[in-house]
């Protein structure tokens, strides 16, 4: 007797549906500011976790339409306000997909900046063109009416949700899950047994694509899987 074949990707039904959420954000202006790289380093060490999150994760949402440039606010400021391209490049290598905690993220930022200032001591006190203001984000999760129980419904909903929803599930999720993955990939793998599809989606480069590009890339991967 032939073994029963798994249903094609389109016909699989999830045990637990995928509920699409979104999030709204307010930016709170912090107390710390930096007028040179030495002060930036001090601020990186002392600022609240929410500030580290704001200037690395949230900035990807606020500037979701940019494909080029430096990937976080610290790197951009080191380049644009301090003219320290070497530091900007090193800071921009940090990929939020590789971190699962703000503590780890802060440590990497501090280490890179400390090392750079040890090698380039004159850069520490040189005045920047404009100050860096440490901010933080306050976010509220917003449920949406979109729910998916299979790949077709997932694809249909993904066409419709806002880019804030994509940010929430694809980027913001990493700290929530404490895994090097995202809500979409996790659900596709766990509920629809689509591990390869999940991996491909997780590999989409968020630093060289806009959130709309990310949406299109996910949809292309799903179309092929179907």
């Amino acid at each position: 007797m032939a073994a029963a074949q798994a249903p094609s990707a389109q016909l699989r039904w999830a045990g637990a549906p995928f509920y699409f959420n979104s999030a709204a954000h307010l930016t709170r202006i912090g107390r710390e500011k930096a007028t040179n790289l030495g002060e930036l380093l001090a601020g990186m060490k002392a600022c609240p976790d929410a500030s580290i999150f704001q200037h690395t994760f949230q900035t990807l949402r606020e500037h979701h339409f940019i494909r080029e440039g430096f990937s976080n606010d610290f790197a951009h400021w080191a380049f644009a306000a301090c003219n320290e391209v070497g530091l900007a490049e090193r800071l921009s290598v940090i990929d939020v997909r590789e971190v699962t905690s703000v503590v780890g993220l802060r440590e990497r930022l501090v280490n890179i900046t400390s090392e750079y200032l040890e090698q380039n001591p004159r850069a520490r006190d040189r005045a920047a063109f404009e100050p860096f203001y440490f901010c933080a984000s306050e976010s509220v999760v917003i449920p949406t009416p979109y729910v998916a129980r299979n790949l077709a419904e997932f694809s249909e909903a993904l066409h419709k949700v806002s880019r804030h929803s994509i940010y929430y599930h694809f980027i913001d999720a990493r700290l929530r899950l404490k895994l090097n993955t995202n809500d979409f990939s996790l659900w596709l793998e766990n509920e629809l047994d689509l591990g390869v599809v999940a991996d491909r989606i997780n590999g989409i480069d968020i630093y060289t694509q806009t959130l709309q590009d990310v949406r299109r890339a996910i949809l292309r991967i799903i179309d092929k899987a179907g």
Partner: protein
Amino acid sequence: MDDPRKDPGTMTENGAPPAPPEAVPGERRKRPRDPNFNTPHRAAPPAPKLEDYEPIIGRPELDELRFLARHLRNKTVKMVNSTAVGGGVAEILNRMVPLLNELEVRTKWEVITGGNDFFEVTKGFHNALHGGEYVVTKEILDIFLMYNEQNRQRMEFAEDIVVIHDPQPAGLIKSKGERGKWIWRCHIDLSNPHPDVWGFLRPMIEQFDATLWSSPSFTRQLPVPQYLFFPCIDPLSEKNKPVDQATVQKVCDDFGIDRSRPILTQISRFDRLKDPVGVIQAYKLAKRYVDCQLVLAGGGASDDPEGAVVLREVMNEAGDDPNIIILNLPPWSALEINALQQASTVVIQKSLKEGFGLTVAEALWKGKPVIASAVGGIPTQVIHKLTGVLVHSVEGCAYQIRYLLTHPEFAEQLGKNGHEHVKENFLMTANVKRYLLLFQILLGVAQPKKLETA
């Protein structure tokens, strides 16, 4: 077109341009050296509904606004400022209050009243808070407090949320009771305030539950939460709505602008802080390498003696160059300004000092590459080489003009990024969303998501 050099009206015996003549309503003057134009008065179109924004921001964004508002249904809000017409605050409230009510957040807008003496004091405060010289006397403070007290007695504050805009009505905070949450929205740059004026206002501001600022660089250290609330533009207003090509062409024809050649534009009132003379100097440097026209369009030269002086300086600097088009427009020229921005190849904002500089957002919204000074709130809008270019000198401005006119693909990409930047951060709907979220947080309707840090 006549050669302006042959026009006896453009030169005086000593070689200086004559003072601008009075504008004649309805008359279109095409002589390049007469900057005074009139534009037709138009009836204000009806205020847009929430649904009208769907083609711009999309259905999911509208749904999110409705979701946030649902939890505030029947909550009451009062907005208070000092003027019902004119000025950016009134312009924003005119659009925002109807939208909040359409979302069933019951919002009232009240304007404080006062005599000329009060508004002279508040104008003095305004300039002093921007760093200007000012002598604070007891009489001045008494006038401020007296009118605030009069308004306080006249008004009721039973709302769940009270939003006070700018310093003029700050004294109303005395009415803050147990129930409502009070918010101070500061639209001005307080980075370098007159110490006596700020020292007088600060104890009032410290009583608010939250303060809202246009830029982190505008803030003061305060013991109350400070939130970033960008000023915004309305994409459906006369100044920002899509304009058909026929209208753009007609406006350019009326003003003698040749659309077949590159057009550089700065839209600003004639004020030295906007550096219109510096713009002409940058244009002249760039013009050695690239063909272009320069349009300097603004107002303020008819009702402001200083504006008239600056306009004369601008005309002197322009000399007899027929490719410099100077337009002194009346305040009701929003459609013409819109068309000029749409027709521009590059938009310039070479201010020496600036508030937030919403003309930059207007240009970015129209997908234009922008060259702007790195002052005030401009760097928030223009991210260097991503959503525009920042400059620090006449020479830098000239170089960027040359670069953008000879690299149209780069210029186009800046314009596209700039448009998206405005869509994400500086539209009226984004402003409404921020307010809804803040109201939720202050009223305890929503708890901000806890950040997972470990």
